[in-house]
């Protein structure tokens, strides 16, 4: 594919779109599908045909529009967004085209939830049909790749990524450019690029939405990465629990192969690259890169000590680049617009935007993309719309089981890698769960410890035994039988597990306990000294 051919496809698609004067976009990402958005789309199709509007009006399935709590969402362009649409509303929606919108279904879009976002990764989500490569190309897709292949050397590509200041979006925040240049300098007979789509954090669904809404963006990011580091084979390690994402990825890979964007001698150059899917099978630890590689190789997903890092010795002992879905999704716009453009967004050390899955007891749950450096207060109270049922905010949890709970004192803190780490939490992959006064922090800590205990792979003892013992202690506390000695032991164990575990799972497992101890010590004290739970959750013995 030459730049001219790409331009031609984009132009043809633009022309085709211009002929259709009315497009009704229906969200067909997982959130809305589970509210029966497919039947809404089918009803719209039937209604369009029965009205004989086929030539000038059509419905199309698009990716996630963000406000998952109000689904199914339907957009008719010009900022008109409908929420909670059912199949029975199809006629009303079509009546509203080019006329007054349907008042009762209207979802206001001039609210902070939409206005405060800045979309880079999600720029096409909710706009293009994820199952058609032509629409992605028409939205400047694959332009970055062709530009890189035809006009840039691999060193120049890495330079742009370094300049952009992009950091790994999987959670740890390792500079992406540095990782790429390590892999490109490493020596091996073959190199691999792996996309980590094993989104295991409970409460996080960013990667899933990106894969379901804009799969080609991830493929393009991987292709550019492969060109930069000199890899010829790629794998996407995706959770088997995401059937829709798998289906769309398979379609996307097939389409890209047909267009000559994947396969041998891409764009007439010597660069060849193929991508295969590997299905995860439900093991949280496989998000850790060495465990992930073991799993891609068909083994049990247990981590191994690093170094050697996968950048030197990864898949089959060869240099391997592993990045997260969101990291790859950031690459095409960086190459298209240049690293400096990206570096202008965000804070000094955390550049660009971050996608968050906002959930829990907050009014607007869903997917949001915000510039780094926004405060937690803006996230929870402006974008999130605050706490429903007139309850009080208690904490916001970031980073899943490896992260921590931050109290209201931290609300004015900017969201960036360093600030979150200082406060005892982590950026994580982007789960953000809001809790109100009805949640007990000890119970929440126990929940996460239960998670880490079950997900511990069992290879190293601090993690395998430590998480079990910590869970047992937390269980005693929530049953209101604990003594002050139990508290001392819990703190000692936190320190031990954090510092002696083999991989990230064990090292970060104590974080939920440490952060709740730091900010909500009073709750622990109440459980032990007064035998009562301030939130009224514990002691009933009812929970998991």
């Amino acid at each position, binding site marked *: 594919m030459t730049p001219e051919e790409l331009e031609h496809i984009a132009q043809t698609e633009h022309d085709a779109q211009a002929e259709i004067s009315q497009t009704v976009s229906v969200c067909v990402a*997982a*959130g809305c*599908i*589970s*509210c029966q958005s497919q039947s809404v789309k089918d009803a719209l199709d039937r209604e369009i045909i029965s009205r004989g509007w086929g030539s000038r009006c059509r419905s199309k399935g698009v990716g996630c529009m963000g*406000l*998952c*709590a109000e*689904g199914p969402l339907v957009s008719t362009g010009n900022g008109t967004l409908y929420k909670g649409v059912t199949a029975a509303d199809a006629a009303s929606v079509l009546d509203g085209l080019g006329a007054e919108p349907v008042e009762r279904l209207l979802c206001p879009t001039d609210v902070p939830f939409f206005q405060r976002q800045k979309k880079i990764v999600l720029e096409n989500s909710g706009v293009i049909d994820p199952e058609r490569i032509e629409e992605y190309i028409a939205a400047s897709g694959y332009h970055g790749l062709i530009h890189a292949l035809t006009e840039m050397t691999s060193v120049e590509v890495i330079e742009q990524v370094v300049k952009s200041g992009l950091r790994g979006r999987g959670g740890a925040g390792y500079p992406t450019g540095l990782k790429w240049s390590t892999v490109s300098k490493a020596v091996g007979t073959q190199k691999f690029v792996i996309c980590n789509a094993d*989104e*295991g*954090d*409970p*409460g*996080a*669904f960013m990667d*899933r939405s990106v894969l379901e809404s804009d799969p080609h963006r991830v493929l393009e990011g991987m292709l550019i990465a492969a060109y930069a580091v000199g890899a010829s084979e790629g794998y996407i390690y995706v959770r*088997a*629990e*995401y059937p829709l994402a798998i289906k769309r990825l398979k379609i996307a890979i097939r389409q890209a192969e047909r267009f000559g964007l994947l396969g041998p001698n891409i764009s007439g150059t010597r660069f060849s690259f193929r991508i295969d899917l*590997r*299905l*995860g*099978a*439900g*093991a*949280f630890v496989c998000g850790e890169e060495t465990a992930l590689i073991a*799993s*891609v*190789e*068909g*083994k*049990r*997903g247990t981590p191994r000590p690093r170094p050697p890092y996968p950048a030197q010795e990864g898949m089959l002992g060869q240099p391997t680049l592993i990045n997260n879905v969101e990291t790859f999704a950031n690459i095409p716009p960086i190459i298209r617009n240049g690293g400096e453009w990206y570096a202008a967004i965000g804070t000094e050390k955390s550049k660009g935007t971050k996608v968050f*899955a906002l*959930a*829990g*007891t907050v009014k607007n*749950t*869903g*997917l949001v993309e915000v510039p780094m450096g926004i405060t937690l207060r803006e996230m929870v109270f402006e974008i999130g719309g605050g706490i429903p049922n007139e309850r009080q905010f208690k904490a916001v*949890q970031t980073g*899943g089981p490896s992260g921590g709970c931050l109290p209201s004192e931290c609300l004015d803190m900017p969201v960036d890698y360093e600030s979150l780490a200082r406060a005892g939490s982590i950026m994580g992959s982007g*789960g953000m*769960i809001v*809790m109100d006064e009805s*949640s007990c922090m000890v119970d*929440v800590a126990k*929940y*996460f410890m239960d*998670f880490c205990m079950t*997900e511990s*792979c069992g290879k190293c003892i601090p993690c395998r035994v430590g998480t079990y013992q910590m869970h047992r202690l937390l269980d005693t506390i929530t049953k209101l039988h604990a003594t002050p000695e139990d508290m001392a032991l819990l703190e000692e164990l936190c320190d031990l597990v954090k510092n002696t575990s083999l991989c990230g799972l064990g090292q970060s497992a104590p974080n939920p306990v440490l952060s709740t101890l730091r900010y909500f010590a009073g709750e622990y004290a109440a459980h032990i000294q007064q035998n009562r739970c301030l939130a009224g959750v514990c002691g009933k013995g*009812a*929970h*998991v």
Partner: protein
Amino acid sequence: MRRVGQQSRGLIETLHTVQEAFGYLDETALRYVASSLRVPLSRAYGVATFYHFFTLKPAGEHTCVICLGTACYIKGAGELVDAVKQDLGISPGETTANRRVSVLSARCLGSCGLAPAVVYDNEVAGKVTPEQLRQQMAKWNPHDA
């Protein structure tokens, strides 16, 4: 297996395919897969038991997956588990004695906007209340059956 090139690398892919076809992995299947891919049976068994997604037991007629992700937990998934325990007498991971209903738990379905979420036979239902869950269970597993 031919698709993965009879390589031991394809073990997980193969097990996925087998489970998709038969619903679970029994001893015969594991022995067959292990010998075809030339890996020790211990490794096939190790992989099959390491990952949560694989099951060595046949599932019931209907399956009900309760999401226990953080958002669902905060919004009351624990009460859903209790409701099932009371009504069917089984915990997540178990099947009723008459093989009608299997109850499973999931770490996160990624439908956090709809918390608490439950999957009834591959259909995701959002904002589920214990009463709704009880009704569905009663439909699948009538007391007089």
